[in-house]
């Protein structure tokens, strides 16, 4: 082969090109490494010298504009350096990859041209039995060594962990005080649990035998524990934690009615916490938060919320939405309320204003109506609107923005829920026009987006186990797996809710509709199990309480059904007043807001 001059020339050329390309790659690699070491993306704009200078200038900015300009220029240069570094790296990797491929490819070609086929007879004979024996010994030794190394590695961590445990002991003392307080709360909670268990037994005795409600609501992250019914549809998005609620009352005769109190206009739902029932009310003149004594119905306080956008034109919500359609949220510290004017205010239990935030006027054709979610030290606002929509998490203590994410899909009237994904992360699930989005509740990072339902989306999502659900007239009901990427599992176009939200419990999904139909679907595959039509439609969302489903229609009649796989009516209880707000269940009582009154039903 070497006798052919053309082949020899080609081999030499390829070999030289190959080496040149490899040297070029090596130079690029060194430059990349140097760039990384010199101006890593973190260090470029986080240099302590720059930070010190910026801080210094910030403090003396008014005095020395020239110095401020100099610092700003330094800041700009640092950023320029960062982006240059990014650009260099991007181009450098191209050059490195191309150089490596060309270099190695040319050397491979040169090697192939110059290769002679060796006479196989000259190769040393191997003893396969001996090779196998050595391989066996090597594999056994490697496996046992690996196992031992793993065990040692773990033991080493144990020692370090013990050292840390000693250091943590002091912290434990401090924690003990907190533990005592926690224990007191635990005792009170246990008492409630015992009462709840007794009621559960009573409920089970009289309950439906085909009820599917047996599994825990593992997916949902409860909203603030400080409220008995802390937000729209309660802490568990439509699931009431207690089962000892009344099943018979009559508004006309007053039977079963504990108290009723007059309330001003507003369609927001009541929330209950700390012995108070909170409702919001409002019109173009003023917006207010009202607190009632949950036990007696006596008005405790009423606070108006100042218009943060005073001077700006007021929104023009439709009459059935109004200025106070968003349900407030409450926790141990007090109550949070948002209005169609874009004002979000926090009051303590005594009615003292803690903080107020103006979110700007929402652009919403029917009027802003999404409700708040409070929990984990955050108050979450789904502020979907025609343009400039966003989701904002505010610190419950101060009203400062913890995080904020844009939501460009236009207006929606849906409210947030929070569910725990299988990876343990708390996922804020928001239903919007065209898609359902998941955000990391703690950090606000968008986690996933899936195609959802379209239109003027008002129903809020539901969740149970490892699934969540969204519904909307036109699209029907959609079931999704709550996986790290969220994936659609099924859809059922037979349901058509526009306002009320579904509730999932016991492997079933109950979907109410504005036209008065309630459908029960199998949550696993979306197959319809039963549908029943009531004469009046639903705006209020149904609540599952033990083995019963409570659905309040627009004429104020509560339809109590078995929350099971077959339809069974338990009772109809009328108040005699039209109602659109979702009732609250707390302390063995039901709080129902009608157009003109706040009712409390229950004997205790």
């Amino acid at each position, binding site marked *: 082969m070497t006798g052919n001059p053309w082949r020899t020339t080609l081999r030499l050329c390829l070999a030289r090109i190959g080496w040149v390309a490899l040297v070029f790659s090596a130079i690029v*690699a060194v430059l*990349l490494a140097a760039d*990384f070491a010199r101006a890593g*993306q*973190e260090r*470029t*704009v986080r240099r302590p010298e720059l930070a010190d200078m910026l801080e210094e200038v*910030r403090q003396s900015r008014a005095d020395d504009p020239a110095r401020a300009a100099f*610092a*700003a220029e330094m*800041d*700009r240069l640092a950023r320029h350096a*960062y982006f240059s570094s990014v650009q260099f*790296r991007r181009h450098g*990797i191209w050059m*490195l990859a191309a150089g*490596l491929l060309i270099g*190695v*490819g040319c*050397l*491979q070609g040169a*090697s192939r041209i110059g290769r002679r086929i*060796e006479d*196989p007879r000259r*190769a040393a004979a*191997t003893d*396969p039995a001996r*090779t196998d024996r050595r*391989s*066996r010994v*090597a*594999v*056994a030794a*490697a*496996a046992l060594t*690996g*196992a031992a190394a*793993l*065990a040692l*590695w*773990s033991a080493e961590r144990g020692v370090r962990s013990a050292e*840390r445990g000693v*250091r*943590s002991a002091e912290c434990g003392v401090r924690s003990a005080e907190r533990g005592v307080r926690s224990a007191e709360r635990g005792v009170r909670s246990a008492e409630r649990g015992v009462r709840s268990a007794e009621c559960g037994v009573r409920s089970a005795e009289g309950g439906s035998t085909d009820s599917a409600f047996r599994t825990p609501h593992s997916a949902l992250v409860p909203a603030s524990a400080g409220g008995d019914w802390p937000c729209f549809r309660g802490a568990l998005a439509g699931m009431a934690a207690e089962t000892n609620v009344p099943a018979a009352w009559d508004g006309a005769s007053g039977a079963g009615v504990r108290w009723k109190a007059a309330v001003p206009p507003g369609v927001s739902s009541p929330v209950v916490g700390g012995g108070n029932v909170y409702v919001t009310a409002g019109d173009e003149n003023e917006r207010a938060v009202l607190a009632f004594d949950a036990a007696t119905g006596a008005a405790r306080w009423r606070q108006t919320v100042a218009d943060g956008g005073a001077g700006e034109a007021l929104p023009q919500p439709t009459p059935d939405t109004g200025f106070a359609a968003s349900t407030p949220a409450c926790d141990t510290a007090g109550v949070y309320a948002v209005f169609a004017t874009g004002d979000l205010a926090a009051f303590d239990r005594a009615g003292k204003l803690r903080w107020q935030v103006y979110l700007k006027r929402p652009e919403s054709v029917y009027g802003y109506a999404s409700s708040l979610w409070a929990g*984990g030290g*955050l108050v979450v606002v789904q502020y979907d609107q025609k343009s400039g929509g966003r989701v904002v998490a505010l610190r419950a203590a101060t009203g400062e923005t913890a995080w904020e994410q*844009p939501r460009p899909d236009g207006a929606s009237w849906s409210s947030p829920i929070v569910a725990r994904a*299988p*990876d*343990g*992360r708390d996922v804020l699930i928001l239903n919007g026009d065209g898609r359902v989005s998941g955000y990391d509740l*703690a*950090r606000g990072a968008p986690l996933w987006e899936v195609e959802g339902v379209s239109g003027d989306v008002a129903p809020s999502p539901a969740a149970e186990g*490892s699934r969540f659900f969204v519904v909307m007239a036109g699209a029907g009901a959609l079931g999704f*797996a709550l*996986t*790290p990427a*969220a*994936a659609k*599992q099924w859809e059922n176009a037979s349901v058509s809710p526009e306002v009320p939200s579904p509730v999932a419990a016991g492997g079933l999904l109950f979907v109410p509709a504005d036209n008065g139909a309630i459908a029960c679907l199998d949550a696993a595959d979306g197959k319809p199990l039963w549908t029943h039509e009531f004469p009046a439609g639903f705006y209020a969302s149904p609540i599952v309480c033990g083995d019963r489903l409570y659905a309040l229609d627009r004429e104020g009649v509560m339809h109590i059904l078995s929350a099971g796989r077959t339809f069974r009516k338990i009772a109809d209880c009328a108040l005699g007043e039209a109602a659109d707000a979702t009732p609250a269940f707390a302390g063995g009582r039901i709080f129902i807001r009608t157009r003109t009154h706040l009712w409390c039903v229950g004997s205790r």
Partner: protein
Amino acid sequence: MQRFPQPQFETGYVVPTAQNPAVFAWLPPWLEALLLAAVLLLAAWLVLKRRSRPAVVLLALLCLAWYGFVRHGCICPVGATQNVAAATAAGGGLPWLAGFLFAAPLLAALLFGRVFCASVCPLGALQDLTVVRPVRVPRPLDAVLRLGPPLVLALAVLFAACGAGFPVCRADPFVGFFRRFAPVPMLAAGVAVVLLGTVLARPYCRWFCPYGLLLGWCARLAWRHAAITPDECIRCRLCGEACPFDAIREPRAPAPAGQAAAARRRLLLTMLLVPALLAAGALAGRLAAPRLALLHPDVACEAHLAEMAADPQARYLDAEAFRSLGRDPARLAAQARAVRARFVFGAGLAGGLLGLLAGVRLVLLARQPVRDVYTIERSRCVGCGRCFAVCPRHQVWAQRRRRNAALQGNET
């Protein structure tokens, strides 16, 4: 998303809103699936029927360009293994395309051997195209290094199923080239693997790739598999010398009569070792579980919180964020406890399976199979076609085929 401070001064510049880029997709998912199926069938035809190494290389180049540099190497069947594990643990939610990408090469391997590795996988193609002068690794060392893929597979499934991320994707040394952007350590690893691959052919495929292990298992049962020679083996030994992956086994005579009993005894003793290895693996896995669980963000955050409580100088970004958000430590502790419990179960199971696999390897090595001719070891053969190119019988067959084709051309 850029993680650095916002500009400090009013400059009139409007900071753009952080955007999440849309999932890269040049083709609709159904077309992606169809394309993969077509490429797998083409690769099978080139390896099994056409027996053409140049055609296999050409297809590998095209697939490297498409699946690597155009599609940026994601989502690939190697990574899809983790999607499947995560979805299985979560009880559903596997995107159908990910499922297809995972299953189609396995099905192809069941039918035709590892044709996916031959010319479809961009990682394999990149390594195969950069083999310059391969050196044979001693078989005992190779046997040890081949414990790598099961270990990686076990860890990948464990982490994906426990929600601790996709480690195989994080450790992919080539994705930096495909995306033209990577941290320098990842890039350095990529360069190192490419340079290593010039003398040790396909190091990633042989000693790291978890999907290759699954493909190898399927290929053992392949309906049709590539053969070294189109007709008879003349025991010239050229194929064995040409294969850089040590996937060709030489002829082996039966053990002498006096050694047969000893061989049986050895096999029996090795089989007795299997339960011990299984138990050792399970125990080691369980012991290592708490430390492995630290790679889960919740467990890490809990540990960092504890460390910061013990040492005021310690600073961890996740723990600081947790504190500043006012999250509930009790809830975090409960989450971390649940994660650790999952790891204890999963790591024990994975360790036991690894031990079992090592035991099975030992048993296979203790056998003394009799072979008359040079034979392909199906689980190792990636269908590169190097053995065809050097086989004298293949040259005769190829010449005859070309002559027949020319004759048919003349007749027509």
